[in-house]
């Protein structure tokens, strides 16, 4: 088992080098009910990269994906525990360190994103548990000199059924470790016998997160640690020319002023001193080529590319011919803005660089990339960089970037002490890497019966993948994320032509944002399907239903959502009902939203009903939770959010100008899960993908006008 061996030897090496360090960073004992988070657990029994059992009976599950709210620690622990046959109250959990054993194949690196975690680990983590259990049973059978088939397991104990003898997993750990790991697949439980999977389990991180003991990256405390905060050039690509820090150095509590090529860091005894120190700096930037970029520059470039050359990304049949011969032609242009991630936990990173090693405490969705960047900056070998992944206070794609880790290491390597860098909210918004702005142009043809005969679609916008994972850009130059929800739809579309004009956004770096291609694509396609239905004078649910063809799962969620939302029942004046149907991240969703648009144009979302078929469900209540939260996240953006630029500078400074949906603005949300035995789909981003389309369609129903520009405002014509 080379995979397991690599992981174990790395851990042992770390333990040897860092025993003292470990003592400082293992959190205090949680309350009795709380699951312990541990780090670098060794145990003689380590049959793979995910399970460690020690003779003292401690059972550690190492979870390949990081917890940022989506409930993955609980879900993945359930997958292992189901097959290992232990209770969730018997385990401690550990965030996977950077290691090849934890690479997500679909993402090409060790990463948590794209709603891939459950899909990727559904089989592999159950197998990891089953292999461990098989070895433990084998060890018991050897000790008793009995047939392994005469043994059963339950809650961390092996029992010899005929004699009633028992041994705990801890008692068997040393002997199990001596057995060869099976090379052929081990049998997995029949789903009908699942004790955990499919049954709602409380979140393992719940107790620590309600009693304030959960440690996020920003909460890290290290001996002799100092605090830093950063001002980077507010214009992307600009560099530092000069800094006068004479006033800053007089401020009580300020200890150091550090510089790198494009940023200044003030170091002090606490964040307040660093903040005051930063304000007292006189910084001269060379703002570079982007100092004239404005929001208009961004949109103008996108709209201009609606004409002219583009790459053909997808064709099916003769869409243009079908449209030319259609009874009715429908056309629309949709525009979507730059968006910030704005997680509640501002960007932060704690780093300690010595001659021998570099320790990084951070919440990251890409631990291996962050580690590799630190190795490059420090010149240390990768195995001397130790990344300690923490709870993430909201990821949403922001922590798929690691430039803030690179920056923190660049500063920290200049000092001897551990340095905790925390960005202000203003810095967090101004130096985010943004969801791109896009413009889409769609033309559809309807026959005399109101049936869609052809769809032509041009997408204009950046190719995020070209920067994030250049090797994944399709050979024809298309970012296949843009084909999500546009080519892969829940519909039978007889003829389609889709082309792509790549336009990188000037003045900003663009990045993944919750829902990625699904969020942008569902808004466009589901808005346009609604426009087609209106043109065909067919009810929007019925119009979609007729198009679901060979997607029975899509039809089922559509019917369920329509029924539960009382589709077609009368609504008060000024209130409209809209629907969105989607197949993204391997899951089917139908969302019906009720939205009120006042005479003044004020928009209020009253109710959302969602029907979900995400295949086999691991932790049902957490699926519901992700849909609820994902919708709210999507609605914040759909109703309020747009990053704007002036003279190359982001204008949105804080939550007063980048508004977030609040409790009094949030709709009632009902989520209905469809029973399914299909393999699991992703769920963390689906609700977000649904939000804008369902809201825009409901607003159109309320007012009789179309809403083709995000953010949605009632006044839009």
């Amino acid at each position, binding site marked *: 088992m080379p995979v397991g061996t690599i992981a174990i030897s790395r851990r042992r090496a770390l333990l040897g080098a860092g025993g003292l360090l470990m003592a400082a960073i293992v959190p205090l004992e949680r309350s009795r009910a709380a699951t312990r988070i541990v780090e670098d657990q060794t145990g003689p029994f380590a049959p793979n990269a995910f399970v460690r059992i020690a003779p003292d009976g401690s059972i550690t599950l190492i979870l390949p994906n990081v917890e940022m*709210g989506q409930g993955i620690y609980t879900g993945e622990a359930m997958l292992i525990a189901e097959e290992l046959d232990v209770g969730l109250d018997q385990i401690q959990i550990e965030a996977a360190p950077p290691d090849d054993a934890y690479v997500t194949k679909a993402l090409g690196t060790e990463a948590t994103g794209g709603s891939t975690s459950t899909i990727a680990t559904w089989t592999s983590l159950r197998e990891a548990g089953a292999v461990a259990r098989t070895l433990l049973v084998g060890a018991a059978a050897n000790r008793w000199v009995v047939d392994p088939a005469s043994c059963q397991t339950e809650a961390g104990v092996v029992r010899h059924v005929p004699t009633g003898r028992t041994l705990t997993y801890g008692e068997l750990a040393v002997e199990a470790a001596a057995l060869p790991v099976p090379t052929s697949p081990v049998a997995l439980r029949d789903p009908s016998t699942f004790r955990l999977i499919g049954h709602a389990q409380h979140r393992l991180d719940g107790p620590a997160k309600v009693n304030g003991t959960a440690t996020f990256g920003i909460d890290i405390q290290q001996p002799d640690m100092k605090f830093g905060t950063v001002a980077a050039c507010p214009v992307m690509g600009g560099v530092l020319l000069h800094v006068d820090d004479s006033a800053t150095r007089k401020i009580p509590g300020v200890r150091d002023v550090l510089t790198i090529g494009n940023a200044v860091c003030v170091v002090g005894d606490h964040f307040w001193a660093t903040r005051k120190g930063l304000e007292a700096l006189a910084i001269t930037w060379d703002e570079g080529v982007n100092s004239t970029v404005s929001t208009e520059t961004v949109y103008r470039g996108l709209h201009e590319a609606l004409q002219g050359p583009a790459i053909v990304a997808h064709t099916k049949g003769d869409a243009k011919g079908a449209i030319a011969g259609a009874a009715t032609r429908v056309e629309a242009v949709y525009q979507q803005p730059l968006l910030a991630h704005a997680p509640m936990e501002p960007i932060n990173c704690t780093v300690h660089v010595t001659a021998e090693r570099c320790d990084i405490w951070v919440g990251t969705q890409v631990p291996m990339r962050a580690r590799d960047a630190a190795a490059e900056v420090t010149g240390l070998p990768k195995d001397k960089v130790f990344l300690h992944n923490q709870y993430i206070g909201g990821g949403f794609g922001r922590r798929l970037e690691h430039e803030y880790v690179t920056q923190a290491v660049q500063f920290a390597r200049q000092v001897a002490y551990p340095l905790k860098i925390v960005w202000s909210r203003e810095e967090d918004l101004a130096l985010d890497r943004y969801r791109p702005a896009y413009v889409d142009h769609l033309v559809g043809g309807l026959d005399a019966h109101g049936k869609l005969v052809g769809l032509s679609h041009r997408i204009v916008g950046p190719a995020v993948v070209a920067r994030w994972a250049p090797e994944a850009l399709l050979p024809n130059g298309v970012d296949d994320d843009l084909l999500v929800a546009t080519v892969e739809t829940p519909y039978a579309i007889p003829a389609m032509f889709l082309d792509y004009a790549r336009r990188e956004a000037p003045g900003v770096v663009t990045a993944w944002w919750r829902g990625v291609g699904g969020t942008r694509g569902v808004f466009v396609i589901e808005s346009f399907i609604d426009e087609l239905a209106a043109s065909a004078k067919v009810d929007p649910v019925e119009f979609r239903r007729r198009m679901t063809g060979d997607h029975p799962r899509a039809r089922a969620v559509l019917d369920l959502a329509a029924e539960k939302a009382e589709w077609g029942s009368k609504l008060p004046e000024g209130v409209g009902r809209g629907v969105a149907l989607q197949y993204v991240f391997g899951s089917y969703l139908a969302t019906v939203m009720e939205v009120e648009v006042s005479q003044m144009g004020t928009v209020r979302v009253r109710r959302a009903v969602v029907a979900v078929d995400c295949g086999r469900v691991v932790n049902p209540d957490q699926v519901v939770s992700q849909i609820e939260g994902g919708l709210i996240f999507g609605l914040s953006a759909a109703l309020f959010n747009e990053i704007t630029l002036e003279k190359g500078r982001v204008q949105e400074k804080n939550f007063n100008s980048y508004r977030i949906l609040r409790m009094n603005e949030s709709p009632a949300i009902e989520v209905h899960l469809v029973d399914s035995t299909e393999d699991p789909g992703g769920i963390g981003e689906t609700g977000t993908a649904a939000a804008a389309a369902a809201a825009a369609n409901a607003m159109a129903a309320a007012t009789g006008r179309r809403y083709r520009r995000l953010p949605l405002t009632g006044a839009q014509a």
Partner: protein
Amino acid sequence: MLTLQVNGAAHQVDVPDDMPLLWVLRDVLGLPGTKFGCGIGECGACTVHVDGKAVRACSLPASLVGDRPVTTIEGLAEDEVATEVTKAWLDIDVVQCGYCQPGQIMAAIALLKSNLHPSDDEIDQAMSGNICRCGTYRRIRAAIRNVAGAV
């Protein structure tokens, strides 16, 4: 030198007069349960109790606290309402990323201590200053209702 009463103990701290309570708690006293979210009182992540009232620690200079007792998420162990609130939060798995939740919980406790049976409007009024990016609002409201029913 200031003397602050935090979670039932007196602490002497040597900090600038304009330093917000948030940073005294987090960076000087080592109580990181109270979170930094915006620094301008817009998000509520830093909500603590001063004299039993919910306040934004990021915008309150520590020098203005005086001898009024400060309670943070770390100082709730003995409190009956707090015990019910945290239990209600766990019963229906309110949390997602959890970063805003100490602030949400402190706001909820302050509400319930002044009004044990708040209406939905009163819950909205008390809680809408606290942003949750994960969108756990529906469950927060439900948990507060459940406490009102339980106590």
